[in-house]
């Protein structure tokens, strides 16, 4: 039965935004932890750690997110776990976010002048204290703008979770479209919702970047 595209459908799509947001938040939180570990490993003295973290980042930045989602989705079965779209999407997006945040934060850490680390070492600060009180606070200033920029990429990336059957914003749109067959209207509405989520973040990232550039040139 084909029915009209009604306000109930808009509400259904609107409610699905929370799953897009939840998935984005899980991936961002997990990615922040993973990214921090990767960034520290990438900038460490130990060659093995540098090599492992670099390979991880290269693999996840050099393969499609869609393939990563499928691999984790079918990989759950290999590990004998039940196949759950939310779990698969959360794990895949977390790994994906870890790689990208790790690379962004590595750059930020390396942008802190070497002398800062040397001065901290000269003051007999331990590695932990040096990172926590000297290097990371300064790296954070360079890292915020690209991190917010990556958040936009991550929110857009969650749309691919619909392909492995997780009902978030995109899949809610597909479901409504299957019932109403108004693709122009339905996908236009879905696109508008994504735009409302992402655009403010893009503007914020750009504004932060401009302010940073000003601070650097001044």
């Amino acid at each position, binding site marked *: 039965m084909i029915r009209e595209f009604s306000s109930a459908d808009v509400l259904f799509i609107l409610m699905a935004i929370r799953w897009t947001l939840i998935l984005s938040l899980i991936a961002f939180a997990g990615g922040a932890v993973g990214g921090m570990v990767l960034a520290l490993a990438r900038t460490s003295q130990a060659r093995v750690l540098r090599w492992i973290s670099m390979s991880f980042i290269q*693999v996840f930045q*050099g*393969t*499609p*997110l*869609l*393939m*990563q989602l*499928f*691999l984790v989705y*079918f*990989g759950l*079965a*290999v*590990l*004998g776990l039940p196949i759950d779209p939310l779990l698969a999407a959360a794990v895949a997006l977390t790994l994906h976010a870890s790689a990208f945040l790790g690379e962004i934060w590595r750059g930020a850490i390396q942008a802190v002048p070497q002398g800062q680390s040397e001065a901290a070492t000269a003051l007999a600060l331990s590695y932990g204290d040096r990172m926590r009180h000297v290097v990371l606070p300064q790296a954070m200033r360079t890292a915020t703008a690209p991190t917010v920029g990556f958040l*936009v990429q991550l929110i*857009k*990336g969650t*749309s*691919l979770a*619909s*392909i492995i059957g997780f009902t978030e914003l*995109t899949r809610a*749109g*597909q479901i409504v*479209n299957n019932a109403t067959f*108004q*693709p*122009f209207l*339905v*996908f*236009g509405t*879905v*696109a508008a919702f*994504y*735009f409302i989520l*992402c*655009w403010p973040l*893009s503007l914020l990232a750009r504004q932060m970047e401009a302010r940073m550039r000003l601070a650097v040139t001044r």
Partner: protein
Amino acid sequence: MYRFNFQPVFDNLDMLAHGAWLTVQLSFAAMAIGLVVSVLGAVAKTSGIKPLRWIVDAYVEVIRNTPFLIQIFFIFFGLPALGISMSPNTAALVALVVNVGAYGTEIIRAGIESIPQGQIEAGRALALSPVQIFRHVVLKPALRNIYPSLTSQFIYLMLTSSVVSVISATDLAAAGADLNARTFASFEIYLVLTALYFLLALGFSTLFATLRRVFFDYPAGR
């Protein structure tokens, strides 16, 4: 315990290789046409004609702040409502062009703006002809400045293009999905697919790095 079975994958490697070739073709076609869109977009943006700039700005913002998956759904399923119907492969190409055109517009604009006015004046002071100025003073340094962004955009485009398999366009991911539907060796198939995409990305970034060394590796004052 799960038992790995790579036999279906190895029996159909030719099918996957053909899929990879389609992905490369699709990516190159999308990048080539996308670059034309990008140059037009960048010229429109820097032209100083306000309505033109607004249109391009809106295009860039809309594309950059919505998922590619929704863009391809809109083009493939939504546009027929306006009487514009396309085959899956054409829709895939159009969607990729529209997508890469938005990112490319920003890259090319940055390239145009990266050439200081004084550099062009210096060229004129050295009695270079306008053609020489364009070629050696504007084009080559601008290309050199945007080369890293353009090439990483290409690789990103190639990885994104795997999404076109959802509208049943033919590419590497679609070849894998076909094989999966016939043999159900899902994990093994996607493992090999992921590896193939990785090899493509690695191969092209190595190629681009070599080309950069050949064409743009000369000292430049900053």
